[in-house]
């Protein structure tokens, strides 16, 4: 009897495991049938309104012409990686090109070698253009660009790079196009807008530990905007400003606790400036009836607590750069640093009715402000203060009507 019971248990376990293993199988088998890229008729249709989410993330092909190498964090971070990837997918799908994404090994602890391996895999997989997201990829990108001079590399959130990192005078790699953004402008817009809307106790939680230039510019712009609006309205505004728990751009229980602490002690709105960190911050906001400012892409669809998002056109940048590669005008961006800002309509806040959740601040006021940035009558400083180790040092700032608590 006991033997029989034991046998039975063993069998149950085997079946339970087998059931676990085979459970997801149907999704993989149905995936190829939904690939729209196999239908040639798609190419003639105007696809301006294509929802990037409807384009599958993976496709079957012998080689992949357009490749995307992700930054730290998840592909589907609903922010930086996903936004760039949407641009890559959109361009590829519209032009009937094959595409594939590569995530460097070891996740958040990816080394330059891991990134280089991902780029190599992309090139060996047939890539003609490799889009690399995130400034951390510089060293790997330099090696890959030297090793594969015929492949075009797009360096999002990056800059033109030279062959020798020590020698700024050495030859510029012409197959790398650096594209960055005036994040301080949309940070400014967001900071200005929330203070104008009546918020006086703000928070900023940034990724990259205070060393990521894009996040630092967002934060610096945010402070300037908040200060400008506070001075205009004659109110005093406090900002909790933190780089804690953001090194890896990941959601974490600790981050959620910290932000929940802010909300319970009076912070009304927090600028979630770093990929997946949004999940922790919006969870804390949702639990405490606080509000959130999204980053990089319009995140209003993720949570009702998102008042607005400081957007930059990462998808637009990817489309632009891949376009230059395919229409033979690579020279215009190759070997150069292209900065996209308000004048390129590459930064701003989402103004669609669904995404505009301000009560007092209006779209017209926003447009006026945006115009003044465009025509140069308002200039937002991009050079954030740094301490001797190169860390962001917002605590040293003295801005009118603004108290900054660095946490």
């Amino acid at each position, binding site marked *: 009897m006991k033997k029989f019971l034991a046998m039975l248990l063993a069998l149950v376990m085997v079946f339970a495991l087998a059931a676990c293993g085979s459970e997801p199988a149907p999704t993989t088998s149905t995936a190829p049938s939904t690939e729209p890229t196999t239908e040639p008729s798609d190419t003639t249709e105007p696809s301006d309104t294509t929802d990037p989410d409807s384009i599958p*993330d993976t496709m079957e092909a012998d080689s992949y012409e357009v490749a995307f190498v992700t930054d730290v964090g998840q592909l589907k971070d609903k922010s930086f990686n996903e936004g760039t990837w949407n641009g890559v997918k959109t361009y590829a799908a519209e032009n009937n090109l094959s595409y594939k994404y590569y995530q460097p090994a070891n996740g958040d602890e990816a080394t330059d070698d891991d990134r280089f391996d991902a780029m190599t895999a992309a090139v060996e997989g047939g890539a003609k253009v490799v889009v690399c997201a995130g400034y951390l990829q510089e060293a790997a990108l330099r090696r890959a660009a030297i090793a594969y001079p015929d492949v075009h590399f797009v360096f999002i959130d990056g800059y033109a790079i030279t062959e020798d990192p020590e020698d700024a005078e050495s030859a510029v790699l012409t197959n790398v196009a650096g594209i960055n953004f005036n994040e301080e402008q949309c940070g400014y817009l967001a900071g200005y807008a929330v203070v104008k809307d009546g918020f006086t106790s703000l928070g900023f939680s940034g990724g990259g530990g205070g060393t990521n230039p894009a996040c630092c510019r967002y934060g610096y712009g945010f402070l300037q905007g908040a200060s400008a609006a506070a001075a205009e309205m004659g109110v005093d505004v406090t900002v909790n400003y933190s780089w804690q728990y953001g090194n890896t751009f990941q*959601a974490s229980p*600790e981050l959620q*606790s910290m932000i929940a*602490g*802010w909300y*319970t002690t009076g912070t009304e709105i927090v600028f979630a400036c770093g990929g997946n960190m949004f999940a922790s911050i919006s969870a804390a906001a949702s639990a405490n009836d606080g509000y959130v400012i999204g980053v990089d892409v319009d995140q209003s669809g993720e949570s009702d607590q998102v008042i607005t998002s400081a957007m930059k056109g990462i998808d637009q940048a990817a489309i632009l750069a891949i376009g230059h590669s395919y229409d033979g005008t690579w020279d215009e961006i190759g070997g150069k640093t292209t900065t996209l800002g308000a004048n390129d309509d590459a930064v701003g806040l989402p103004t669609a009715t669904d995404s505009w959740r301000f009560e007092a601040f209006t779209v017209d006021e926003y447009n006026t402000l945006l115009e003044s940035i465009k025509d140069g009558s308002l200039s937002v400083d991009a050079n954030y203060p740094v301490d001797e180790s190169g860390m962001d040092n917002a605590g040293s700032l003295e801005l009118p009507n603004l108290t900054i608590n660095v946490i």
Partner: protein
Amino acid sequence: MTFLIQQTLIYAIPLMIVALAGVFAERSGIINLALEGIMIFGAFIGVLFVNIVQQTDFFMAAKDADNYLALQGLEMLAMLAAAFMGAVFSLLLSFASINLRADQTIGGTALNLMAPALVLFLIRIIANQNTLQMASGDAASWFMIKKAMFGYGRTEDMGFFGSTFIDKTYIATYICILLFIILSIILYKTRFGLRLRSCGENPQAADSLGINVYKMRYAGTTISGALAGMGGFVYALTTSNCMATGDVAGFGFLALAVMIFGNWKPLNIAGAALLFGLFKCISASYSSIDINGDGVYMLANLGISVHLYRMLPYLITLIVLAFTSKNSRAPKAEGIPYDKGKR
């Protein structure tokens, strides 16, 4: 104060229930090192369950209609699913260590290695990335108990008790506390509990009195697996926004430490878990803690480095263990496979 208590509970409850899971296994004579692995697996199953079930018309409608009872029911069902699959997963350990008489430490380690790999593999297939999230919304808006459910407005106050123990809490927390109490009573005040404990102290003597040691050990490990699986999901739900990542931040191992620290006794374990939870909470949010409600954030004003605060929970555990481990006494027969022929 309210904030401090709530955050402490959020960290302490999963630890407490998983440490009790460890007690049930070890008191029956099986070392369950696989707590971490079972937690990871349970978290994955629970989140997957929520992800799939919440998309059904019934629950989408319930969410739109603010039908809180249905949503709390969904949360409890997910806990049940996680507990069930946690129990099934732990059968691997029971089978290896009871029937095959394999080394329990190695069996547990194998499960710990297998769980994150298996879970990540499945998540990648299902979600095409490294995290599995809810299909829509977030944990707080779906499952959290809020004062609005009891008709309180945004600015109305529920009083200290209400705002601390009802507003912004999860029902999972209270289910865990209840289960903890019931299971502790079972372990100490029932015939089943006595027999289970005897199998961990002297299985030969227990067998001579007609107790089926194999059955008791299976029962202990299976209860342990169910609790750990549930604890894993509760952890994912309350601390990480209902996300499964193939990782529970070492809470399974911490629970083992809490169990040893608590000397394999439920009451001590509850105390140890609360202590650890308290310091975990202080380390993450010391800058917002206002103990006596006078608007002064004492801990932030002390000017101590943030790194010291972050070390605190581990430092405290080390210190307390150093002082208490001398008196702690493990079940005598744990880790030794039971062999009827050996006397």
